């Protein structure tokens, strides 16, 4: 099996240069565009449709490239690109159903390595990636967190966690992993695994609201966990964990109103995409709601899907998945919550990555 994979990988690299001539049906223009500064949007595409793309909006030219990945590499991302992050000079794109992590140059999107995550013939289904001290941690639906060296790009270890882990966050030298159990309908997991980053072992499991998915951490020792509930009797809500004691500080289904599934923290503020289509701002220092809605100009987002904050400009970026089946949109808001511009993205824009200079 390993030989087979290697062969694929080798041929993928070898063919890259001659691909344009090989392909009769479609012209793939290999574009040497350099992303100096702009926004990448990773579009999941539709499940089982092999149409995940990486949109790029260039701040300088104000133009959008619909798929930087295929433009740079001639190949496609595959099925359900779920997470993308830049660490050092590389960008890591986690492709869920294709079960790969595409490691590319953060500036050019040129492929450096395609890391396949399979357990024999079973796809591990990677979901999210976080970094700490030259190691990447990749959660996969098969109940593992893979540890990858960011220099050798080799997977060094698989740490067993709970069921169907989703987002992770590094806080106080520990890795917190949200074990959703979301693939067992009616019986979600309700724990957060704590992994000691020195020993790379799971040290404990913290009970949270069922079906935890999204996570973020602030500088005041709080780890925020958003749970989806079981869609029936258990309501969605937020659990706040103390990163010193790993005890649950607060657990609430009403703290920030209607819960969505996305949270980010920047400085003193946490930003939530709420299910009533607002961007709620929460003061991490005082633990109170700062603004019921960051958007001040009445811009309507049909299906808020992912959010990012630019700490240098105070801008907030929100994607809109529309009807989950057609092209989405990225909205840029200035620090006052007024819409600056919007661009068309691919289907289900699930991750936003800012690249500055």
């Amino acid at each position, binding site marked *: 099996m390993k030989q087979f994979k290697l062969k694929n990988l080798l041929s993928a690299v070898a063919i890259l240069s001659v691909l344009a001539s090989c392909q009769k049906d479609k012209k793939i223009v290999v574009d040497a565009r350099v992303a100096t500064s702009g926004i990448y949007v990773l579009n999941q595409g539709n499940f089982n449709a*092999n149409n995940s793309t990486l949109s790029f909006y260039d701040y300088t030219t104000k133009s959008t490239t619909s798929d930087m990945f295929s433009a740079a590499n001639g190949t496609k991302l595959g099925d359900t690109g779920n997470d993308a992050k830049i660490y050092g000079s590389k960008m890591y794109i986690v492709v869920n159903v294709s079960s790969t992590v595409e490691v590319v140059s953060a500036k050019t999107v040129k492929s450096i390595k395609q890391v396949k995550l399979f357990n024999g013939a079973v796809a591990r289904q990677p979901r999210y990636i976080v970094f700490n001290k030259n190691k990447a941690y990749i959660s996969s639906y098969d109940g593992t967190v893979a540890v990858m060296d960011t220099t050798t790009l080799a997977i060094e270890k698989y740490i067993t966690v709970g069921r169907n882990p989703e987002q992770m966050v590094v806080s106080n030298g520990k890795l917190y992993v949200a074990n959703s159990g979301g693939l067992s309908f009616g019986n979600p997991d309700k724990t957060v695994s704590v992994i000691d980053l020195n020993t790379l072992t799971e040290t404990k499991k913290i009970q949270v609201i069922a079906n935890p998915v999204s996570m973020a951490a602030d500088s005041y020792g709080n780890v925020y966990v958003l749970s989806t509930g079981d869609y029936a009797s258990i309501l969605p809500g937020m659990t706040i964990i103390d990163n010193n004691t790993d005890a649950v500080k607060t657990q609430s289904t009403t703290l920030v109103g209607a819960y969505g599934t996305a949270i980010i923290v920047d400085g003193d503020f946490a930003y939530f995409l709420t299910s009533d289509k607002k961007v709620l701002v929460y003061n991490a220092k005082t633990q109170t709601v700062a603004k019921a809605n960051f958007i001040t100009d009445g811009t309507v987002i049909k299906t808020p899907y992912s959010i990012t904050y630019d700490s240098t400009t105070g801008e907030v970026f929100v994607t809109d998945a529309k009807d989950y089946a*057609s092209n989405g949109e990225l909205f840029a808001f200035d620090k006052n919550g007024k819409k600056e511009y919007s661009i068309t993205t691919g289907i289900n824009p699930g991750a936003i990555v800012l690249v500055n200079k």
Partner: protein
Amino acid sequence: MLTCLQLISYKTLAQSDTTKKLKEVTVKATTVPKVQTLTPTQQITNKDFARYSAFNVADAVRNFSGVNIKDYGGIGGLKTISVRSLGANHTAVLFDGVQLNDAQNGQIDLSKFNLNNVQEIAVYNGQSENLLQPARSFASASVLSIKTIQPALTLQKPYQIQAGVKGGSFGLVNPYLQWQQSISKRWSFIANANYVYANGRYKYKVDGDGSDTLAIRRNGDVRSLQADAALYWAKSDSNKFNIHVNYYNSKRGLPGAVIFYNPYASQRLENNDIFAQATYEHTWQSSIRLLINTKLSQLKTRYLDPEFLNQQGGLDQHYNQKEVYQSVALAYHLTPDWEVSYAADASYLKMDADIYNYAYPSRFTLLNVLATNFTKGRWQLQGNLLQTNLNEMVKKGVASKSRSVLSPTLMVTLKPFDNSNLQIRAFYKNIFRAPTLDELYFYAIVPRTIKPEFVKQYDMGITWTKNFNNLLEYITLTTDAYYNTVSNKILAVPNKNPAIFSFSNIGKVDIKGVDVGLKTQTKQQNGWRGLLSANYTYQQATDVSDPTSSTYQNQIPYTPKNTLALNAGVNYKQLGIYYNHILSSSRYYTGNNVPDYYVPGYSISDASAVCNFITGKLPVTASVEVNNLFNKNYSIIRSFPMPGRSYRLSIQITI
């Protein structure tokens, strides 16, 4: 005898001649396809299946105009019919006049139906013009009717056995057997058994993952058994009864969508279907006609996904659908020109599934239809009013609201000239389909409100047929322009595997189209005969739901604008050689008609040769069929590649 009678009655409608002359016409009319019908009608009989290199019911009708077969590829791949862009759920599939009902997903997988026991397949836009039929035959936007072979025996030879085997690419082995037996003057039976085994493997090209070699489609193996038996009783043509039992069992792998870099698929689907149906038909001297149909059916489906990453370490789901169905229809000629009919159908259906939070719904449907047909001079007028009552109950959750809907249909034909076989026809049909039980209750953790999907169909067409005395035997030409409006359209989007869909409700669709059909054949000259048929379809099906949406006025997914199907052949004595070609323009797989979501068109050829001969005293039919003659890479549904060139050899003996 039976077909002869039908032809006579058909001709009676078309022209008011004397009986003596009629008999002459009938002899000629045997080869002329019936195209001058109230609503557009296309049919194919069993002797022509090889002409179209058809292996199953879907292959047999894919050339029809206005028909779009959604084929997920391979022998075990799901194949459904969409007529005039309305989607599979708007076509009722009738099996010997009684609907094959699948309330769970509302669409019939036509790959399940082998052609070995099929006599004729017809597609009706709107409905058939027959007044005496179950109410369900009036209750859909179009009808696909499958008629099985009935015993046709003589006193000299009270039995007939046909045995055959088909085999070829994909590791296909398909032995079948048919036994017809006359028991007494009034009783006879027919039994069919047919077994399909195929490993389902074929090569295909993957675009976009950087690979340069052909990949092999795996996990597409099929094993299926279909057994069918029917008992016929006939006192006379006006007093007859039959009972039919049909059993189907299959186990197949689901190769799934092609996923870049992840070639493994392990999902499986098992079907275990059985139904029994009985039909009684009586015509009294007072011209009252009675038709009673009863049906019991059970559809069991098992879906397995051993690699699903849940706590149980895989999915193993069982679905069970049971239905009791009863229909009574009466027709009566008030005057020789005016016939009225009434039909009432009742159905009770129950659905079980061992999935999370399942509602265990049951549905009671009552349909009443009043229909009338009036013929006067050059005019024929037909209309009906259908009343549907839907009632649902659930054990868990919230049941869908009860509904009562009135659906009118009007049809008219006019023969404007006495001396020309030109006919003008038009119809209007207002119909709806109920949301399926899957749409309503499949993993419906939050109760779903799905309204029925309403369709209004307007059609106007011209038909022309002419018999010749020169080189050509006949020409038939049909052209229909249509306009359909769909409100609250529920679109099935291919998902995870062909057995499970996700649903999106895109609101309103406007469909404008043209269907054109041509059929001709030469007279037999020194043993030679040429055959030609061509069908063309133009469809513009645009999403008109939301002017602010990026999909507004874009063509709906998987709907080619232009489709052309050509079939040509030559018969020489007992040998026939045929060529079939289907050309489809490009499509989009999402509602955004942008290059990113483009699915290229395709142009695919099939060829076949059939030979009938006699060895010893037994008639033998042998055929060779080649599908995708030029080995083109294509797919009808994106990510579900179709096979390249494939072969099939068949041999059949009749004892």
